């Protein structure tokens, strides 16, 4: 026996076993859903942000890293049930199509389109391309484009391709989104709805071209939203409500500075001053950064220089670089938000957010104040040695459309929601390692 003990292989085995049993250990934090939550059936209610939309499109990768998918995955660790999403198939992984960065020109990322794969041919009323149907019941009911207003419209299901693809043929145009949600009978739900009641207006630069770009009347918003929650909680479901961020914390509205017109030579300055009446219109230029010239029907000459508290929209970037927008050509009024338009957006945002907060309180639901969250991270933060900020491309949180998040951004929001749920329902649901999710890919 003694002889065998000295055999190197046995010795190595013994040493190996000893060492394996002596690894340093840190007691794992206990995890549990607590006694107040029933996570058997989680249903996510919302718009594009809930669907996993990013880079100007909905595609399989974005769906797989949607915040509801991350929440459900973490819920499963504490006994939550299965979660199904209306995933585009792998063969149609590019979904609705999206954009990626094709190249950089002068430091500006130039988008390159990735073609849609999940179109089934034909268009819907309103002109959108019809998408491949997905008729099995799903729990991620995030519908890009939907608002509180349209959630109550039966006709809407015929024109929104993301809702249309989920409805049975007979239901199209005859069933509201609210009905579709209520049929799913969740035991727990998340609801992040209402962004589009404002965004339609804001993305149009405050120049609504059709009814979906109008701001939703606050009383109508309150009635629909309140009824929706009343019905959703009728059977005792618990849930988390999420409010609407401030447009001033979204890169689509903050990337292009008001004084984006940089003049480097006196000849440029002189030429522009001469072109704009040599100061007679109250418009003057100097070397360095200058406020953009914008179209404003209310201004004496129909244009003026933009104020420092007004917001230029992201798509103006190309026109400023290539078409003389903001200098020789006044920036079209649908490419910026004026002071009065911003005030209106702020008023509606706070009214809607008051409605959401009130119903969360009265129904005793968890409430994630994402408006406040984005305000607190405006200046950026560092997590795991990575810098994050609500800035375009470089901030790691927002995708290439400047409105929707990256997979990493969605994971970070999902973690914030989990912390909110834990606090509200005395649960110990683990958060996810956000570094496992990607940010913006660069060529």
């Amino acid at each position, binding site marked *: 026996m003694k002889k065998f003990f000295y055999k190197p292989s046995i010795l190595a085995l013994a040493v190996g076993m000893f*060492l394996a049993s*002596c*690894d*340093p*250990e*840190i007691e*794992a*934090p206990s*995890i549990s859903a607590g006694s107040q939550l029933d996570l058997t059936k989680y249903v996510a209610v919302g718009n594009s942000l809930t669907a996993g939309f990013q880079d100007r499109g909905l595609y399989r990768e974005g769906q797989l890293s949607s915040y509801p998918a991350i929440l459900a995955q973490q819920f499963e*660790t504490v006994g939550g049930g299965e979660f199904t999403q209306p995933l585009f198939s792998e063969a149609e992984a590019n979904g609705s199509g999206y954009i*990626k960065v094709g*190249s*950089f020109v002068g*430091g500006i990322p130039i988008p390159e389109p990735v073609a849609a794969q999940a179109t089934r041919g034909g268009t819907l009323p309103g002109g959108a391309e019809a998408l491949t149907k997905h008729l099995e019941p799903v729990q991620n009911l995030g519908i890009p484009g939907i608002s509180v207003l349209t959630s109550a419209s039966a006709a809407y299901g015929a024109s929104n391709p993301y809702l249309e693809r989920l409805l049975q043929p007979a239901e199209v145009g005859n069933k509201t989104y609210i009905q579709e949600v209520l049929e799913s009978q969740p035991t727990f739900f998340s609801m992040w709805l209402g962004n589009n009641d404002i965004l339609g207006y804001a993305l149009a630069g405050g120049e609504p071209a059709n009814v979906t770009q109008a701001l939703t009347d606050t009383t109508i918003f309150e009635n629909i939203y309140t009824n929706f929650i009343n019905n959703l909680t009728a059977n005792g479901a618990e849930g988390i409500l999420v409010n609407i961020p401030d447009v001033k914390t979204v890169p689509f509205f903050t990337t292009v500075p008001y004084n984006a017109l940089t003049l480097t030579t006196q000849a440029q300055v002189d030429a522009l001053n001469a072109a704009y009446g040599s100061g007679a219109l109250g418009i003057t230029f100097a070397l360095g950064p200058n406020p953009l010239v914008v179209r404003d029907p209310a201004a004496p000459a129909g244009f003026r220089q933009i104020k420092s508290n007004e917001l230029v929209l992201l798509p103006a970037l190309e026109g400023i670089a290539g078409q003389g927008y903001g200098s020789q050509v006044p920036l079209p009024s649908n490419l910026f938000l004026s002071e009065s338009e911003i005030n209106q957006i702020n008023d509606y945002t706070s009214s809607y957010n008051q409605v959401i907060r009130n119903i969360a309180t009265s129904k005793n639901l968890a409430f994630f104040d994402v408006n406040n969250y984005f305000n607190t991270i405006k200046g950026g933060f*560092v997590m*795991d*040695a*990575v*810098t994050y900020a609500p800035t375009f491309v470089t901030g*790691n949180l927002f995708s290439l459309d400047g409105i929707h998040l990256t997979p990493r951004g969605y994971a970070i929001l999902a*973690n914030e929601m*989990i*912390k909110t749920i*834990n606090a509200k329902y005395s649960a*110990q*649901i*683990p*958060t*996810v*390692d*956000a*570094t*496992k999710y*990607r*940010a*913006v*890919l*660069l*060529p």
Partner: protein
Amino acid sequence: MKRKILALITGSLLSGAAMAGGYQVNLASQRQIGMGHTGTGITTGTSSIFFNPGAMSYLRENGVTIGASGIISKIAYQAPEPSGATAMTDNPIGTPFQVYGVFGINDKLKAGLGIYTPFGSTVNWGNDWNGRFALSELSLQAIFIQPTLSYQITDQLGIGAGFVYAIGGVNLQRNIPLQNSQGAYGSAELDGKANGVGFNAGIFFKPSEQLSFGLSYRSKVDMKVSGGDVTFSNMPTSPAIAGRFPAGTEFDATLPLPATLTLGAGFMPTQDLTIAVDVSHVGWSAYKSLRFDYSQDVNGSNYAENARNYKDAYIYRIGAEYNLSDVFALRAGAYYDGTPVQEGYLTPETPDSDSRGLSVGFGYKLSEDLSIDASFLYINKKKRTDASDLSGGIAGTYKSVAYIPGVALNYKF
């Protein structure tokens, strides 16, 4: 020949795995490891070159010692609650070593040469953990070469001093939070050779057969890297991004290896029993920041700097040796090593905390001239949770343990 041997040593051996406070590696003699790494207040044989050059003059015979340890260490990590993320290092076995030779010029004056590895660190967190943008792998080596002279002034008093020339290197790898079109993260590797100089001096006082004292001072050594290589890989290729991480970038850096002042005492109540105690003060406050100066702008800056702000720390040691027979001695010891890392400054490169060491060992005389020492040291660092928000570190909870067997051969002539 000597250069060849050094090249072999530096090439094939890794020195230590950050298993004392900070990146100090207190594994200088197999006999002394067995005794809790005490040794400043007693004669320790050839290893007095390290522990107390003043005691070297008490050696009655010429001798050579060669020894090495194997550091088997692991660090567990858990992200701050409620995160479920965990990680464990996969460190290679560290192999600090020591070679000492002492030659008597006359009865009073001795000359010696020591080559040992008092600092180093090898930490491998891999490329999957959530802290990979701070650190995926670090290897730090320092080999001290110390020619020493020691003079016995009286029967009771000896002094000694040695000049230290240190060589070594650093290799640091981390991910860069930029992803190419395939989704792969960029990575940076900083690799450079370092060197520095210092000294080691000591006084040894032996008022009686039963009692001895020692005081030693090992100076700070600034390990300087000059013209180390910075290599970027997997970066996005478009010039707007790649241009911010230029190829051929070199870096300069200085890592201070802190001064250590040690007061030791020895008690020999009987001929067969030796008890030793040491108290060390380690001047860690010299480590203010980790700074890399680049030869050209990297991501818009020609340097990268993270605060460390270590504070001075104390180490308390006790150890004993008992001669069971003329040829066999048993040893045991313990120590407590205070951490130099202040709250908020914990980093994944040295996720340090107060550490406790327990050791055993034995010595066996094979013949009049030849003997072996063997030791086993267990180090357990206190579990530590830190926000790491002042050092650019990774917040979370860390726990380290290490198992360190070692063996040495002594030859007298």
